[in-house]
């Protein structure tokens, strides 16, 4: 082609026009708010020079009726394409707030749908970076139907390819269902928010004064609603963390998760594990200390850290291979299970199951949270979620009982009879129908009432109960757990057990889907 030719000149002019659209001046609009531009976010996510943009030059749809101004810009406010993230093919879209407020118009939605379909066809993960004012009012109902298509695509791909949303700006009204439907939500604090109905309407209808942050900021979603799984103080760290997170996940539901080169820096036998659980059964400890001693050094990536902190969930690695971890946290709410933690656990377990990620459960649970509040809010059906999720999961499942394992909660936390593959217990384990205090109060009610020194007698009986009934050796001898192990060799045991289970496959009953309590 003749470089000085007319068609080439036109081509160059167009490229220049696109560059101008993404000028420094445009970028300032975002930078002055402490936000990155869509293009910068894409460049930060993808490996250098691997991103290929698609439909960069599309222009907004023609409006059926003229109402309000529509900028003639390239791309219609969203950048979509594919590239490599740490060497693996990933699809992504990033909404551009500087162009018509990142609002979703027909063409904008079509671009996203296109990339979603491609991701599903290629069996690759898809990342949605959201920064949008919502549906484009000027385009009317057509923009709403754009959302519907996007939601449907997410649902069709759910459980087939990992789908992650990153909220880096507003996401309001219908737009919030996108993140709600995807597998994980990353969110940047202070400069992003999600809500179905905004503060203005809340003020109008309910006369309640509330700021954007208070109604749907990152803290709120990370801590109270549980909608956001991971939050970070700035956008760069949000994306860097996302890249780390992706390295734990397979590209689709047929593959196994990727492995990382293991530098063998984590010792297989570690005596420190014997010191973590205190001798006093009423004293709390941090279960994350145990997790960090078992998994590969620095490999524990916690999800939903601030929500339902009484249950810890996250991904980790054992000899470079990804596992999912679910653990009761004794130092928060005594490690009980409640509505929020059951929901959190169930969702996490189902994700692991969908994507062939083996699950390690660390158990120290005294029971479910008592109270009228929990009962009336349906702890019965919410608790059942986790039960359902564990039993339904066909990935390798291993449970280690660290301390308490009482009653219903014991069954729920992946007991052997519920389909757990291996169940180990530490010598500090107490496995029983109920805790010693409750049991003694019931079985020896008469004796305690008649005793001259009930406190002394109770103490004696509690000790007897702990020694004779609740001790793990009984469960071991009856086959309800597989082995009581020395805490120091936990890592070694788990690795060997997961290796034995690496080709596990269980036939799933032929049905459309189960009817999980929701």
């Amino acid at each position, binding site marked *: 082609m003749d470089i000085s030719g007319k068609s080439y000149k036109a081509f160059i002019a167009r490229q220049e026009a696109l560059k101008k659209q993404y000028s420094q001046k445009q970028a300032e609009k975002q930078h002055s708010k402490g936000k990155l531009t869509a293009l910068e976010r894409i460049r930060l996510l993808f490996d250098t020079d691997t991103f290929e943009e698609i439909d960069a030059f599309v222009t907004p749809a023609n409006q059926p009726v003229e109402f309000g101004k529509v900028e003639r810009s390239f791309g219609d406010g969203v950048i979509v394409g594919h590239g490599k993230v740490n060497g693996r093919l990933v699809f992504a879209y990033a909404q551009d707030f500087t162009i018509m407020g990142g609002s979703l118009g027909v063409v904008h939605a079509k671009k996203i749908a296109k990339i979603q379909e491609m991701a599903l066809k290629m069996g690759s993960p898809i990342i949605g970076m959201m920064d949008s004012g919502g549906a484009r009012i000027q385009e009317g109902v057509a923009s709403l139907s754009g959302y519907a298509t996007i939601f449907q695509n997410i649902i069709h791909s759910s459980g087939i390819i990992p789908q992650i949303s990153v909220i880096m700006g507003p996401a309001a009204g219908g737009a919030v269902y996108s993140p709600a439907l995807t597998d994980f939500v990353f969110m940047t604090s202070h400069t992003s928010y999600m809500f179905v109905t905004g503060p203005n309407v809340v003020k109008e209808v309910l006369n309640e004064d509330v700021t954007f942050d208070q109604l749907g900021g990152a803290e709120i979603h990370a801590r109270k609603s549980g909608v956001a799984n991971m939050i970070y103080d700035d956008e760069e760290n949000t994306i860097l963390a996302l890249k780390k997170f992706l390295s734990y996940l*397979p590209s689709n539901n047929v593959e196994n998760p990727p492995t990382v080169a293991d530098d063998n820096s984590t010792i297989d036998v570690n005596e420190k594990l014997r010191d973590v659980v205190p001798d006093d059964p009423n004293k709390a400890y941090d279960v994350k200390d145990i997790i960090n001693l078992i998994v590969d050094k620095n490999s524990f990536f916690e999800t939903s850290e601030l929500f339902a902190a009484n249950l810890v969930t996250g991904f980790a690695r054992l000899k470079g291979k990804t596992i999912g971890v679910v653990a009761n946290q004794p130092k928060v709410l005594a490690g009980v299970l409640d509505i929020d933690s059951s929901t959190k656990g169930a969702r996490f377990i189902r994700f692991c199951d969908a994507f062939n990620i083996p699950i390690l459960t660390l158990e120290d649970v005294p029971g479910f949270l008592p109270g009228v509040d929990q009962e009336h809010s349906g702890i019965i059906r919410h608790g059942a979620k986790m039960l359902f999720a564990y039993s339904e999961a066909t990935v390798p499942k291993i449970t280690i009982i660290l301390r308490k394992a009482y009653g219903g909660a014991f069954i729920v936390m992946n007991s052997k009879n519920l389909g757990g593959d291996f169940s180990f217990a530490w010598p500090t384990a107490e496995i029983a129908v109920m805790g010693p205090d409750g049991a003694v109060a019931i079985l020896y009610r008469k004796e305690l009432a008649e005793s001259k020194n009930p406190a002394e007698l109770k103490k004696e009986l509690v000790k007897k109960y702990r020694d004779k009934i609740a001790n793990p050796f009984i469960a071991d001898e009856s086959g309800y757990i597989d082995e009581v192990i020395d805490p120091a060799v936990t890592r070694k045991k788990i690795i060997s057990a997961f290796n034995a289970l690496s080709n596990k496959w269980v036939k799933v009953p032929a049905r459309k889907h189960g009817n999980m309590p929701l």
Partner: protein
Amino acid sequence: MKIKKILIANRGEIAIRIMKTARLMKIRTVAVRTAVEPNAMYLSYADEIFDNSEDISEIPVFLDIDKIIAIALNKGVDAIHPGYGFLAENAYFADKCIDNKIVFIGPSPDAIYKMGNKTIARKIAIANKIPLAIGSDGNISNEDEAAEIASKIGYPVIIKAASGGGGRGMRIVRKAEEMERLFNIASKEAEKAFNDPSVFIEKYIENPKHIEFQILGDTRGNVIHLGERECSIQRKHQKLLEEAPSCALDSRLREEMGMMAVRIAKAVNYYSAGTVEFLLDSDRNFYFMEMNTRIQVEHTVTEAVTGIDLIEQQIRIANGESIKFNQGDIKLNGWAIECRINAENVQAGFAPDPGKIEYLNLPSDPNIRIDTGVQTGSSIVASYDSMIAKLIVRGKDRREAIKNCKMALDKVWIKGTKTTLPFFRMLVRNQKFQDGTFTTAFLEKDLDKYYFNSEYEEMLAAWLATKLFVEENLEESSINVDFKNGKELSPWLLNKRINQF
């Protein structure tokens, strides 16, 4: 020597301390192994071990009089050394030893009892014309009596437990309105800590120095003092650093106070080692506080400046020997400072930080003495105490001692728990400490920063944080993932997975 075998009814560094001297004196020692620390370092210094690790009762064996006596009889020991804490100041225990024909290495049960009860001790001091803070004549039974006495004495006053110390059962009352509330709190606390709610009241001396005198007495009635110790560096009535001698005393004041210390010891026919505590106010008036009828943690600094082995003296005295030197023979040479290095988090208000010592490297130097009960791999157990080691440093004068202390502190290497080392590193550089003008209020009032870090330390830590960030996020090798590995499934598995949908 009549005493040929001693049972050490204690653990940790003091058990080792006692066993070291006993070995030099060719006396056999017996130690007790407990369930809490079955592999403790002190056990390796004993000639014989009584294994009590099957016993999991809540009361530590070192507090169980019957068990200790039984062990002593079982092992056929001639004497028991109680160390400090535990049963060291339990008159009933001392009595029981005597009943069972076991020598108690310490004073008579009577002396323990009298000095152990603060109101009796006060009465004895008054009777012997020893200066002390004005206070109630005996125990106070209720808040009305307390208020009456307090108004006579004049506020501020301090409520103290009759049966114990260490800050428990102790409350300073500055206004009459607070008396009722604080009286009740102090009394309840005393009951919980010492099983005795009795309290008494004294005039509260503001910002005093805490000066104590080491006493040695024998069964022949000889009593001498071995000079003073400066123990004003305290936090919530727990000593952190001690010195011998004190820069607040000149030879005249030393003589005067020493004389009083000896007098009160003689008043109860004291023998063995003991410590008489005084408060010294800003006008150089001194007041008797109490007497501790045991060997103390900080006995080491007195040993460093007098050259006398106090444990040896205790054993000899218990053996019936008389003290071989007189007051005139006691000379204080040079200066000694002791830092109590504990497993505590200085940045979190000295909260205990129990854990396992992963790396321990202690300096050795002619000027340095280290008394410790732990080694690499030892656990600091919350149920005992948080002491890791006592660092005792000598110098020819105070200035040199501080200088040597500074160097020694930099050579101590402990990893596995947080320690009070940064506190001492700050202290030895503190102007008021160096001037010697500090009082017992020093920690709470005169310090705004509790730890020392050199100007580069924070920067180096920052460099490390940055290096970690770069390694984990910005380098090519940050996330070294092998995606191919996940794709290499066994055909069996791949086949099943694909066909299941």
